[in-house]
């Protein structure tokens, strides 16, 4: 096994959230010993969809927890609390949500980095609010710009805000671990998913502060164009210097000198017409042909890939051996490739997610990891 960037660090995941479990899974990806601490009923994410219709497994839990070990602790019992404190005393980092006393952990183990991840924090005007993906996106300023001006704004898909918050927490925790070498001390790293989401919102917030001008949904799509080919949609981003190449590539070179489109300002004004004219040219083309033609002309383009296409057909991902698999109790299952590729410390996934061991203080290793728990 190659060396691992976070080798030797012991991490406990008591977060019970998508953000927290993703943060800890990244730590497991890069070599930390991560243990998911579950109550006797199991992590709530185990019962959160989507589920594999054949096995009933939560695919969300799978994706967030491969490579971790698990321990079941009934924190309601005295024995359980003792067991938890024994683990906490040895941990380099712990990720918790609102229900755990983070100050107490910090007092008991001053070298521990305590990550506190919650939707809105436990103070402030929204401390009592409940969050979810649409709620975070709505508050962040991002949702407002998604979709058509004459229709309801769209929130997106899945739990992307929580994943982003997981990466934000990972950044905070690792920087605190890095500082521990010189300070000799741990600290508490707090992150709200809601604030994290707004920190990633488009610069329209600053544009408003600068100019007082509000960007509206559907405005300003120029220079982006979505085109429907005979088999799929394609997205094109047309910089001023690639406008003529774009017109050439779609087989309508005269568009480049059409007086409606000769400058950026004019194209902005007539973008719907430009899009309609381009659409006429490409509607019967296979999307791969259009993408090839545009790439040859150095026009920025991408196909709106569908999930199955990403697994089975996208040659780029096949070339890069992107899809991998891990063993689970139900046999091998596909996992996504590494987010980051390190020359010296590549990702090593130790196994599938840990099975739930319901008895108090019982442990389980990553599924079929071939190591002792």
């Amino acid at each position: 096994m190659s060396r691992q960037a976070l080798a030797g660090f012991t991490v406990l995941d008591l977060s019970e959230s998508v953000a927290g479990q993703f943060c800890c899974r990244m730590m497991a990806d890069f070599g930390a010993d991560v243990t998911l601490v579950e109550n006797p009923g199991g992590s709530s994410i185990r019962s959160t969809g989507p589920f594999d219709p054949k096995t009933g497994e939560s695919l969300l839990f799978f994706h967030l927890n491969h490579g971790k070990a698990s321990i079941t602790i009934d924190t309601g019992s005295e024995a359980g609390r003792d067991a938890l404190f024994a683990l906490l005393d040895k941990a380099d980092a712990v990720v918790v949500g609102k229900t755990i006393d983070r100050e107490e952990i910090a007092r008991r183990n001053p070298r521990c980095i305590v990550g506190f991840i919650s939707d809105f924090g436990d103070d402030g005007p929204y401390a009592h609010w409940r969050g979810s993906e649409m709620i975070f996106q709505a508050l962040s300023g991002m949702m407002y710009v998604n979709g058509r001006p004459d229709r309801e704004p769209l929130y997106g898909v899945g739990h992307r805000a929580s994943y982003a918050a997981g990466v934000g927490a990972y950044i905070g925790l690792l920087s605190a671990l890095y500082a521990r070498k010189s300070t000799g001390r741990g600290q508490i790293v707090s992150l709200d998913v809601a604030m994290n989401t707004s920190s990633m919102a488009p610069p329209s917030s600053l544009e408003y502060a600068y100019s007082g001008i509000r960007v509206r949904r559907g405005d300003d799509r120029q220079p982006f164009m979505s085109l429907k080919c005979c088999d799929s949609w394609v997205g094109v981003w047309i910089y001023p210097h690639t406008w003529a190449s774009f017109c050439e590539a779609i087989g309508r070179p005269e568009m480049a000198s059409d007086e409606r489109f000769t400058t950026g300002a004019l194209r902005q004004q007539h973008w719907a017409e430009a899009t309609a004219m381009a659409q006429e040219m490409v509607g019967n083309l296979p999307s791969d042909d259009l993408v090839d033609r545009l790439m040859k002309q150095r026009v920025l383009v991408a196909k709106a890939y569908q999930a199955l296409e990403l697994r089975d057909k996208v040659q780029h991902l096949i070339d890069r051996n992107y899809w991998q698999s891990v063993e689970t109790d139900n046999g091998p299952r596909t996992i996504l490739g590494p987010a980051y590729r390190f020359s010296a410390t590549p990702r090593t996934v130790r196994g599938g997610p840990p099975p739930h061991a319901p008895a108090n203080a019982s442990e389980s290793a990553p599924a079929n990891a071939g190591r002792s728990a």
Partner: protein
Amino acid sequence: MSTLPGPLTGLRVLDFTTAWAGPMTGRILAFLGAEVIKIESSKRLDGWRQHTAVFNPKRFPDGEAGERPYNRNALFNSQNFNKLSLTLDTKNPTGLSLVHRLAAISDIVICNFSAGTLDRMGVGYETLKTLKSDIIVIEMPGFGNSGALATAMANGATMEMAAGMCAMIGYPDGPPTTTGQVYPDPMGGYNGAAAVLTALMHRQATGEGQYIEMPQVEASMQFIGEELLYAFATNSNPQPHGNRVRWAAPHDAYRAAGTDQWVTIAVETDEEWQTLCRLAGFPGLASDERYAAFANRWDNQDALRETIESWTSQHSKFDIAEQLQATGIRAAPVQDSADLHASPYLKARNAFVRLTHPEAGTHDYQTLPFKLSETPGAQTTASPCLGAHTRQILTEILGLTASELDELDRSGITSNIPA
């Protein structure tokens, strides 16, 4: 030079980045206390200075470009806080040798140009590690350094398409939809910083630096991992379905009082549905069997829009959200950029810091959300004017003399005016 009280204080970063993702990675490291030197050539500025773009008044203080619009652009100024700005023409051998001298006393180099650009510039990892054996170099190509699309260019919008996200987002039967204007860009900013920190931990433990390839599309795909795995498990592609989700119904954005004002409401349980019917005054609906049980309500949720909007459109989006959240139902106003600046929640989180920029004036800028109790980091300085720190860096860090600096200016290797 920098004395920010952050966890990365004492580290030096060379920042060869453009637009959003790369600059945001440097911004995060600078927030955490690293000294980040942003290097631009006066012949090729960060694209978000938009030196050659069509003037758009929304991006400038008071809608005015000013004499040096490249110093006043909201895009650039939103992502380069705490950084020092150095201009160097790296195509000139003298300029390149100065970059090499800086790299020899730096810890990290970040770059989000297309794959292979650092090598072509003469500052690739293999070169730099001969100058500084434990250096960490990250490149952030859209698709990656290898594979069929290695040379393809990308930006946030096309990356969201290529990551499989857009095909899952849209109105029923509508086109795939991009989000957050270009959401994968800030995802890339975060992922770049996370990758650098991972390599820093390894360097701290072993003394070994390394090269990081951070393919932005692949890293973004993690954020929809369970949706991809579900498609594989069912052998079917997810279809766009507006704002629907599996676990709640109704779950949508509804018109509130005012023009283009919206409130989101997510009803998870049958009890929450009864509560909503009571608050909104829909007594008939509470007992309507099309909606009483979750499965029926989920199937029939689209028919609820008109009724729900008959209530929401009479009230402010903020009031409805407050009222529903007070009863335990998830709800939130759909906030625009003006709402963000007025948000009591963001105010309580100190999410904005007031900074003065020498050419853009004083404004409230959004800051970053990581809160460290002992080594907090901070966003203390507005984004730099082009070349603002060139002389300072070359004098204080590299020890150049005044006459050497003048010669660099005369020959155009350094310049705080775009070529």
